[in-house]
């Protein structure tokens, strides 16, 4: 018997699976986006609006991860977009091998954008790399501007932060500048998009960024 020092993350196997999935998707020009937020922040609504706004410009598919229900996938299909409901079987997050299996069942179209709507919570999904090219998180106004302080890992890990339900600003004391400052302190390169998925305010900038990241991915090979 010998002692071997490892100092390796317990989830290192997941990181390896994620890296492999990312490369495979990239070879087919599929941009995978891991969309994360607390329950009810507005993930499904944001995806629905984005699909409608980008109709004719991008082919978008959606994988709805949920502990058990089907309602989110039904909402997306009502828009004519392709979607699949993934049940995590009680697991509080998606990992890379669950994502790979879901993608195989889904059969993502080459050249498309695929949203993975992760399980609604701000803790566990931040800890597992799904193999997505981009991590996007949503914070909605009613949740409060102190969330970056409470869930630092999620903010530190995300490429973009969408602050949604801006149309409700008159009814909440959400301090947009404070939220931005706190998020940037944890992650200086995070892109921040204040939007309302209801009125469409600010959606253009987010969609432009999304399309530019799509082009960038396709240029890489």
């Amino acid at each position: 018997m010998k002692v071997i020092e490892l100092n390796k993350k317990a989830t290192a196997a997941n990181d390896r699976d994620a890296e492999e999935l990312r490369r495979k998707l990239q070879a087919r020009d599929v941009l995978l986006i891991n969309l994360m937020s607390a329950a009810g922040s507005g993930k499904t609504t944001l995806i629905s609006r984005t699909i409608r706004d980008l109709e004719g410009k991008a082919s978008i598919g959606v994988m709805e991860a949920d502990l058990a229900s089907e309602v989110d996938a039904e909402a997306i299909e009502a828009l004519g977009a392709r979607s699949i409901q993934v049940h995590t079987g009680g697991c509080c997050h998606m990992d890379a091998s669950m994502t790979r299996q879901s993608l195989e069942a889904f059969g993502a179209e080459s050249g498309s954008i695929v949203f993975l709507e992760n399980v609604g919570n701000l803790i566990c999904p931040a800890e597992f790399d799904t193999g997505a090219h981009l991590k996007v998180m949503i914070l909605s106004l009613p949740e409060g501007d102190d969330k970056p302080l409470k869930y630092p890992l999620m903010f530190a890990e995300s490429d973009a932060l969408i602050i949604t339900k801006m149309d409700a600003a008159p009814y909440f004391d959400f301090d947009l500048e404070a939220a931005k400052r706190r998020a940037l302190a944890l992650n200086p390169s995070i892109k921040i998009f204040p939007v309302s998925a209801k009125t469409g305010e600010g959606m253009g900038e987010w969609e432009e960024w999304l399309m530019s990241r799509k082009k960038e991915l396709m240029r890489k090979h």
Partner: protein
Amino acid sequence: MHEMGIIINLAETLDDTAREEGLTNIARVTLQVGEVSGIMTDLFEDCWNYFKKKHPVLSESRLVLETIPAVTYCSSCEKTYETVKYGRECPYCHSGETWLVQGNECVIKEIEAE
């Protein structure tokens, strides 16, 4: 359940390690777990004892858990302090602009194997 997701990955990571290092039997796994990682140690050990049986190199192994203390950083006065003792408010300047810098991790420190 968060513990299960981590254990499944941990077992796989150890399988990979055994393959890379040519090991056939891992007797001990020492894991460092952050104080506020949210991992419940009892549940974690139960999960481990269940999943290790599915991996021949791990079936005889013992899991040893060490705690990594949680540390919070205050962006107002730039000091750090013990998270569990003081919580979210900085004990030096009473600012609430603080966040966790250590104590959320789950790291395989070392294994004993042949």
